[in-house]
């Protein structure tokens, strides 16, 4: 059951609304970074693989990390940034946000992440990203240089994109335009509890919900089976193109995963079984009960994008269940990534990780779950995630541990561009901090 209009992607009205918003706030928008050759000199380079290189310089040229070493010198015309006593880190990644799709809450024209209809695998978040979003500047100022931006709604919401927090256009910003298909796995549990039933008289009885979920699950599977048939037919020479099934070929050929939004144990197990049955790759997103099935997830090599750590534990669970789960998953061999689910506070994703380190996750693994692990999950680990030669220069300079709230970030580079450190918040701060005191 598809909505015919949705086949044409996000409409002109969306783009117009986003542009109108953008132009009204031009002064608040962050500037695009400055291109050039830069030498970050003499800092401690935290590679991200466990190595720390003291007294080491990083040369940025043509958007990439051209050289790392203690004797690297600045070529003619390079801008030298003294990082003595400072640390150089790979840019952090928030693995689930509505970045660029949603701006101010409660304003419907600024919440354009969801389309009508149930099956929209052909919709691309990337093409609707507002490069004028003030969230971009706010986010990157704290060293968060990339984020998954995800569509919402329906059973298959569309294609999530991995984007940089800087760029002239969405093409310039995109690191991976199809990082995964967002799937809202049809859940039989209202409250997400295993075997739980819905409240009678509130959104239908439990049995109704279970029946509807079973029906929707069959519809989902059928769509994927049809997509596979289409994929085989196209390989065999079918010339007619179907926009929807064409968009699912990377899914059924296992090039791009389904991002399964699930929380309960039953739904996580269901999503894993679906992936096995239909031979597609999956990622668990949310994953509140993932710790209960950690061995299964480790065995199947299925990563978990954790829902916001800034949440409360499910009913009956220990007070520290949300904070302690990351450590438990990593100890079991599950690859994890942190996410805020937020555009406005993606900037503070390292403090989500900090909470996890108080309850069992090692600081080294917390760092990986903000950098190289999400880079691997989103298939961009050859481009970002560590400070290594040849990678894109997505990195930042700070005066301490990025997980420590008291640490200050002084420089941010995205694709080798040195981004200005002022943003909408700093401009409001500077304006009002400059008011003469007691000027009433």
């Amino acid at each position, binding site marked *: 059951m598809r909505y015919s209009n949705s086949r044409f992607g996000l409409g002109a009205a969306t783009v117009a609304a986003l542009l109108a918003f953008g132009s009204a706030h031009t002064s608040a928008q962050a500037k695009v970074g400055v291109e050039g050759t830069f030498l970050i000199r003499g800092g401690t380079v935290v590679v991200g693989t466990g190595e720390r290189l003291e007294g080491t310089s990083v040369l940025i040229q043509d958007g990439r990390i051209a050289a790392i070493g203690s004797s690297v010198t600045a070529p003619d015309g390079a801008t030298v940034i003294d990082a003595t006593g400072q640390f150089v880190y790979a840019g952090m990644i928030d693995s689930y946000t509505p970045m660029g799709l949603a*701006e*101010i*809450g*409660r*304003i419907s024209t600024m919440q354009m992440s969801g389309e009508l209809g149930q099956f929209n695998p052909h919709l691309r978040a990337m093409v609707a990203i507002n490069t004028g979003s003030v*969230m971009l500047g706010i986010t990157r100022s704290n060293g968060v240089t990339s984020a998954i931006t995800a569509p919402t709604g329906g059973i298959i919401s569309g294609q999530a994109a991995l984007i940089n927090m800087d760029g002239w256009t969405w093409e310039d910003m995109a690191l991976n335009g199809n990082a995964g298909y967002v799937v809202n796995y049809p859940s039989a549990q209202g409250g997400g509890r295993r075997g739980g039933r819905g409240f009678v008289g509130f959104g239908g009885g439990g049995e109704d919900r279970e029946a509807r979920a079973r029906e929707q699950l069959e519809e989902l599977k059928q769509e994927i089976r049809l997509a596979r048939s289409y994929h085989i037919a196209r390989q065999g020479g079918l010339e007619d193109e179907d926009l929807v099934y064409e968009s699912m070929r990377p899914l059924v050929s296992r090039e791009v995963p389904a991002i399964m939004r699930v929380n309960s144990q039953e739904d996580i197990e269901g999503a894993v079984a679906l992936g096995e049955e239909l031979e597609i790759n999956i990622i668990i997103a949310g994953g509140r009960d993932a*710790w209960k099935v950690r061995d299964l997830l480790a065995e199947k090599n299925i990563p978990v994008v954790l829902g916001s750590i*800034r*949440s*409360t*534990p499910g009913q009956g*669970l*220990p*007070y*520290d*269940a949300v*904070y*302690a*789960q990351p450590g*438990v998953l990593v100890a079991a061999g599950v690859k994890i990534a942190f996410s805020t689910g937020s*555009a*406005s*506070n993606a*900037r*503070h994703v390292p*403090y989500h*990780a*900090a*909470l996890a*380190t*108080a*309850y*069992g996750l090692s*600081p080294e693994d917390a760092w990986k779950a903000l950098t190289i692990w999400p880079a691997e999950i989103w298939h961009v680990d050859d481009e970002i995630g560590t400070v290594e030669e040849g990678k894109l220069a997505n990195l930042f300079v700070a005066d301490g*541990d990025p*997980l*420590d*709230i*008291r*640490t*200050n970030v002084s420089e941010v580079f995205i694709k080798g561009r040195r981004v200005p450190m002022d943003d909408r*918040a*700093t401009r*409001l*701060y500077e304006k*009002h*901090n400059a*008011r003469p*005191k*007691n*000027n*009433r």
Partner: protein
Amino acid sequence: MRTPVMKSAGLVGSLLLALIAPRGVDAQDLAITNATILTVTNGTIENGTLLVRDGKIAEIGTNVTIPNGVQVIDGTGMFLMPGIIDAHSHAALEGGINEGSESVTPEVKVQVRNDDPTIFRALAGGVTAAHLLHGSANTIGGQSAVIKMRWGKSAEELMFKEAPRLVKFALGENVTRASSTAPDSLRRFPKSRMGVEHTLRWWFTEAQGYRATWAAFESDGGLEPRRDLRLEALVDIMEGRIRVHAHSYRADEILMLMRVAEEFDFRINTFQHVLEGYKVADELAAHGAHASTFADSWAYKVEAFDAIPYNMAIMADRGVVVSVNSDSGERIRRLYQDAAIGMKYGGMSETEALKMITLNPAIQIGVEDYVGSLEVGKDADLAIFNGHPFAPGSRVEKTIVDGIIYFDRDQADTLEKLLRQRITTEDQG
């Protein structure tokens, strides 16, 4: 003038609790030794000892003699700070925190329940007291309750008895129901910020008349005037017997409320949320208003779009007493993280940042003589962390209220313990 009769205990809640929550043990004299003590008002004491007797702080220092029979908690490597105080919470309240049927309802009071697991989770985040407010659906809402996190005790016993009376005001989008899609015919006055100002001025004018009528009766006698609980509460507000905590966002409405209050010769004690407080920080300081805000929440609605994390630092720098609050069962678990945001944005000192979750909220809710800093004679409301509360990787190990340990990580159910049990069960199965 008589005060309205107020109920404070949720009887049903206390009965339920007997079934699910452990009763706390009685107060015991105890000493925390060898800890780094963050006193908030008298600096940091390394390798210090804090002695608790009869639920109060008896001694603090590096040379404290521990009497016989006192329970000793080894604080080596630990950080001891005052119990965290949340100046804005809706936890532990009976459902329906809004008497939003009318625009002005200061005669009602929130009803406390003692079985909300948020109380325990707050303790696990080092919180020992909270201000429980009415909602923000009306211009003048109901009266609040202040509780201590005495998990396991009855609703009556949760009450912070020394706390003054407090009432919630609200401005902006919530009271005008700006997000409402109902037709105008189904909406109530006010629906604009202009209407909110008029609502305030109209009701306080009524209250002035009511006060004059009673004054005339008391001096001249005659027929006793008819008692009106709503106007009586408004008179109590004007006379300073009830403190005003006002939900607010934009600079214009914050300034407006201060001017209305000044016109009727009273003061706004604390602006809540006050996300644009940094734009009127000097006016806040001059009026004598405090500010209780969020650390980093913003953009969730239009009136929250100019919110900046520098708000705390700018207001504090200009002489406003600033606290950072939760307004949430989630944020109340990690207010120590939110306080640290004040250091990052705008460069607050560590002590100033700590004050935002200890002494300053205590001042705002009127309990600073009892809690909010580690000083001899104050209540023994304490949080023990395994590292500096602002450092990543730090967590609360023990939380103490009135000298009683209400949260102890060693005793609490944790995910780690649950996993051990499950593995054992599976092995046996």
